[in-house]
């Protein structure tokens, strides 16, 4: 008994492989984008605390040099060198952020394209959904919606009352 040869170009098989590749790429691109995004946000938070033009060490060096009337050439050179380091750091951070921005954008684009491809190939043919459930009972659905609207209304009233009482600090 011989097993029939599987056609390697079987469309359904190709579709399955294509789908698996798209899912894998989407996961990888998603993780990559999340990592780059987290790194950028972390750098940004750090940059809020770091001001190269407000360095305590630089101010100290300047004060020392000023006390000598900037006559000590070595001290002046140290200030120049330190300032240059700070500027290099500043521009490095800018380059880092710019490169990170491009990498994030590329990662997100790859993620979107592969995720949409994966979603498209995993999509099933349209079929009528099962009848029944809450949706089939118009009365129950409308009642649930009315209660939800009442809750939102109460929340809005509470927000207005809080503003009136000055609790929200507007």
């Amino acid at each position, binding site marked *: 008994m011989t097993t029939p040869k599987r056609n390697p170009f079987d469309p359904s098989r190709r579709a399955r492989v294509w789908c698996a590749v798209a899912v894998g790429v989407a996961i990888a691109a998603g993780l990559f984008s999340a990592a780059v995004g987290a790194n950028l946000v972390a750098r940004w938070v750090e940059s809020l605390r770091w001001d190269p033009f407000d360095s305590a060490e630089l101010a100290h060096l300047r004060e020392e040099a000023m006390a000598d009337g900037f006559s000590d050439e070595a001290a002046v050179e140290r200030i120049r060198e330190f300032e240059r380091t700070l500027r290099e750091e500043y521009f490095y951070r*800018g380059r880092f952020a710019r490169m990170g921005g491009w990498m994030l954008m590329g990662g997100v684009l790859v993620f979107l394209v592969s995720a949409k491809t994966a979603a498209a190939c995993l999509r099933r043919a349209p079929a009528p959904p099962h009848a029944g459930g809450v949706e089939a009972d118009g*009365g129950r659905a409308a009642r649930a919606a009315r209660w939800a609207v009442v*809750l939102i*209304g109460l929340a*809005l009233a509470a927000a*207005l009352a809080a503003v*009136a*009482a000055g609790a929200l600090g*507007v």
Partner: protein
Amino acid sequence: MKRAILLTVIVLLAAPGWAEAAERSAQPPPAQFETGYERPTVENPLPRADVFEYVDVAVLVAAIALATVLALKVRRRAWIFLVMLGALLYFGFYRGGCVCPIGAIQNVALALGGGYAVPAFVLAFFFLPLVVALFFGRTFCGAVCPLGAIQDVVLVRPVRVPGWLEHALGLLPYVYLGAAVLFAATGAAFVICEYDPFVSIFRLVPLLHTESLMDAVRGSMNMLIVGAGVLAIGLFVGRPYCRYLCPYGALLRFFSRASRWHVTIAPDECVQCRLCEDACPFGAIRKPSPPPSLSRSAGKGRLAAMLVLAPVLVVAGLWLGARAGPAMARVHDTVRLADRVRLEQAGKVEGTTNASDAFYATRRPVEDLYAESAGLVGNFVWGGALLGAWVGLVVGAKLVSLSVRRTRTDYEPDRATCLSCGRCFAYCPKEQSRRAGPVVRDTLYSRAGGEAQPEPTQT
């Protein structure tokens, strides 16, 4: 027809590049130096030429017209998607999300408050989509709005939001609209622009060319993170900002309800196959009405109760809003300054602020400032009352609407919430039959032993 559409789509897609090239050519040529000195690149952007405002309006008109034809006549999602991409590139990434009809609400509200003349092109941006929605539905939302487009592009696997939640969250755009109009009309703030989640993303791309990205986005980094969060939700919930926040969408809903030539799911008669039931990722397909669970008299009683409740809610909102007015007035710079100066004059705080220093430097009498502040607080009391009444009206009207018995026999798009995106067409077998054309259709029917069907009429 198809060639004309293709040409227009290509023009729309090329619009950002063309507009940038045109703007560059509008700059003066560099001066010629004999010394070998090379003029450095100009770092500061030149003011935008006035003519480009009209270019923006022309692109808006073309894009809305095209989107309307594609949604109502051609009925092809792929073409609508292409127009949407073009609009995203032009109005979003090239124009940086400004000017847009959503923000134009505030310009119009400020003009209604007095002392401000709205530029003609801003008025065009505000009214054009509304006029189109009045006749053809929300084709602007479906294919032209850059905020909608960026959310549509990222939608990967839509989940269905339960009906009750959809109804409840659907109230928020009206509240946001009321608050935005109040703050804009009183000159306090343009909150829609300030809290626009996507403008930072649109402007991020040009900023990638600058030397210091961090400095450039520092001011709006919070909104950038909010925007990224909204887009992350948008992977699974179709257009969350449009459905649950957009104040302009609230206006468009009003106008779209009356649209005479709105898109339909089936090109002619609905065959009730139910295939389209889950086609819409925005929950905008209304199903045939289920049999009523209450007797007619009980239904009427509940409706009457809601009709009585609605004015009560309006009055309650009016009272609560008026009480909140003075607190809301503190959003206004002048009111805040007057409060600060009053505290400084009374010696209740130590030192001064930059704003109070600047005020003292003007040598303006303090009484003038207090009088102006009192006038503004009075405006906010009235405005707050109107905002509260508006919120009460919206909640009351929704409760009444949910108590009205509907008699719907077919699956049809909800004229208020449907964005005319064209996704539902592909699910309809009648639409497939229309696309197949008369020859193919007749062949299919004759093979099946049936008679040739008449040509369906397009709507």
